[in-house]
């Protein structure tokens, strides 16, 4: 070991069985769980304390959100495929699948944009009611997470993919880590969808 270089950036440490970034992303996701957990708890507290809370489907568009749920789930599948392609040494397929993942993310955002716009046209704003406030805040924050994921994946699709030719293992790890994040974002939506739209 050169004293200058940081160990276990690519290979696992034998006694922990993990490389650095993998622990890092799990810790980060733990903090994200606390963030969304706090927001969900706030939602529960506000709903329990309110006298008239509307049912989600009477205000929100369930078919559109169902479509969006499908889109996100598909993107999680393509994300796994992208990682598996690298594991199988198939760089072409990797770019295809990662490209599809980014595309799905964008579709999700565009659909969400239309949904927001429809609400505004019906004069439904965050300030209209606490239900709308919860809806816009939670989906907005989730949307920001989607944007973050798209940026990261787009980077690994473009300039970041060059790493394949020098440090293939390291790129594979990075895609695994970015995939874990992406699945989390997907998972948050799978919670949000029934909580906001159905219950």
């Amino acid at each position, binding site marked *: *070991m*050169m*004293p*200058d*270089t*940081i*160990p*276990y950036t690519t290979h696992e*440490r034998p006694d*922990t069985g*993990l490389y*650095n*970034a993998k*622990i*890092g992303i799990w*810790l*980060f996701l*733990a*903090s*994200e769980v*606390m*963030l*969304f*957990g*706090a*927001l969900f708890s*706030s939602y529960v*507290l*506000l709903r329990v*304390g*309110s006298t008239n809370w509307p049912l989600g489907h009477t205000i929100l568009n369930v078919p559109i959100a169902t479509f969006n749920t499908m889109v996100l789930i598909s993107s999680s599948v393509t994300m796994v495929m992208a990682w598996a392609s690298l594991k199988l040494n198939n760089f072409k397929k990797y770019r295809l699948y990662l490209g599809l993942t980014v595309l799905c993310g964008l579709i999700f955002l565009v659909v969400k944009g239309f949904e927001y716009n429809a609400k505004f046209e019906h004069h439904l*704003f*965050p*300030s*209209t*009611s*606490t239900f709308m*406030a919860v809806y*816009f*805040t939670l989906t907005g*924050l989730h949307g920001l997470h989607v944007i973050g994921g798209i940026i990261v994946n787009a980077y690994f699709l473009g300039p970041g993919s060059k790493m394949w030719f020098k440090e293939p293992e390291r790129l594979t790890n990075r895609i695994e880590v970015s995939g874990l994040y992406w699945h989390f974002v997907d998972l948050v939506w799978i919670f949000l969808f029934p909580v906001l739209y159905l219950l």
Partner: protein
Amino acid sequence: MSDTNHSSHKQSFWRTYIFSTDHKMIGLQYGFTSLIFLFFGFCLVMLMRWQLAFPGQPVPFIGKFFGEANMPGGVMLPEFYNQLGAMHGTIMVFLGVVPLAVGAFGNYIVPLQIGAPDMAFPKLNMASYWAYFLGGVTMLVSFFAPGGAANSGWTSYPPLSNIATMGQTMWLFGMVLLITSSLLGAVNFIVTIIQLRTKGMTFMRMPFFVWAQLVTAFILLLAFPPLEAAGVLQLMDRLAGTSFFMPSGLVISGQPLTISGGGSPLLWQHLFWFLAHPEVYVLILPAMGIVAEVIANNTRKPLWGLRMMIASILILGFLSFIVWAHHMYLTGMGTVISAFFQTTTMMISIPSVIILSSLFITLWGGSIRFNAPMLFALAFLPMFGIGGLTGLPLGLAIADIHLHDTYYVIGHFHYVVAPGTIFALFAGVYYWFPKVTGRKLNEALGRLHFWPSLIAMNFIFMPMMIQGLAGVSRRLYDGGASYAHAQGVLHLNVVMSVAAWALAIAQIPFIINLFWSIKSGERVKSDNPWEATTLEWSTPTPPPHGNFSTPVEVYRGPYEYSVPGAQKDFTPQDQPKV
């Protein structure tokens, strides 16, 4: 001094000093910035102490520089007092103590003590510092916003904070940056400690300081996000007109508010204290870590009950997440909930007492070296003890009814954070300065710093408890002058204020010492001037890029002092067993 220096690649000024990714430089950046913020936060409180001691009298000399909006004719306005109070709390906690304890000491010392070449993610480390820096700048700039800085206390309780001036919005943005910074730091610390321990450095051979930083990092990681959530909700309330924290039927200055309503001010308190109680352990655990290192080194004894101390600090970390509502007994949340939080609060005092007792027992029969770091570490013990014991009544709802929001509370937690944590941080500065610079801080100036500070601290915070028991509320702009029940203890305001200014004067020897010793302090003759056992003393002085000139291996526990039969009274961790 060692002459090893293998950092062959010379880097530009910017890469070395400003946008460095070396944990030691980042630690120093954190150190300097947070010391400046600590001093600034102290200046704010010195201004407040004038108003408390001499309400309504113009502030001498400097009063006229604060402008008509804050101090017309040099007399402090209540609005300005509120800004000073809120920003004092915020700056001391989030920009002073935590960045110094974690960002500076943690960053500099942890990789050295576990034998790592750097932190696991050097670039994130740099990003963490700059997020902190920007958060600090946002807070400072907010003083110039229309209506001034945040003025709803460091707790920012709504509905008041929701309708407060623009400074509150900047406070929220600043907090989001600071939370981001501490999140990046926390991930980095945990990964570093788990992954980058050198050969032989098992968990049970880690110094107590590293344990303290590990638990602290977990607390930061998991407790801050709920505050971030709360911050987002409050930003929505302030900017998008939502009513998360605004109940229906609010009337302001006779005008009913036109809002959708239905929100809950109590929700904020829950989210806020879910962070802010664990936060007090973020303020105290690294301090305990430093004190443990200094005490083991200067008693020349292993820490008594080290395993129990480690178990205690882990239990403390867990329990700190389920005591938050002991700050909310008076909100009417119900006796059952109160009973739960009273129980957990009493439980959490046990591990704290164990740690403190272990440190006390370590002193027993040691041949103690009374140098400057040790004096501060020793003073930490009774001061933190007073702070902790005075907290017990606050944990019981029945006593808290009387004491809540009085100066007793202010006195209690300042004993913990000022003569407690701050003294521990001073101990750390005196202790590790020779490793960073190759020179010792001057001992005489150190004593001149220590004794007046110790005396002044007690003259500031002990009278606060007396006032609080007499029923004087905190956050009063006139220090209680307009209340009949406060008249008997009003004279103490002058005592406390004079002591606060004396405390400022007592810092002058320290500031002189710091700058003078960097250039002209006594040079250390070895890499291990205190004859310590932990790994940071096995590096060259100052440690070069990459820290260790040869790979290190650890063969023994962290505190092998005065081992019977050993050649010397200390056996470094990297000394092979024969």
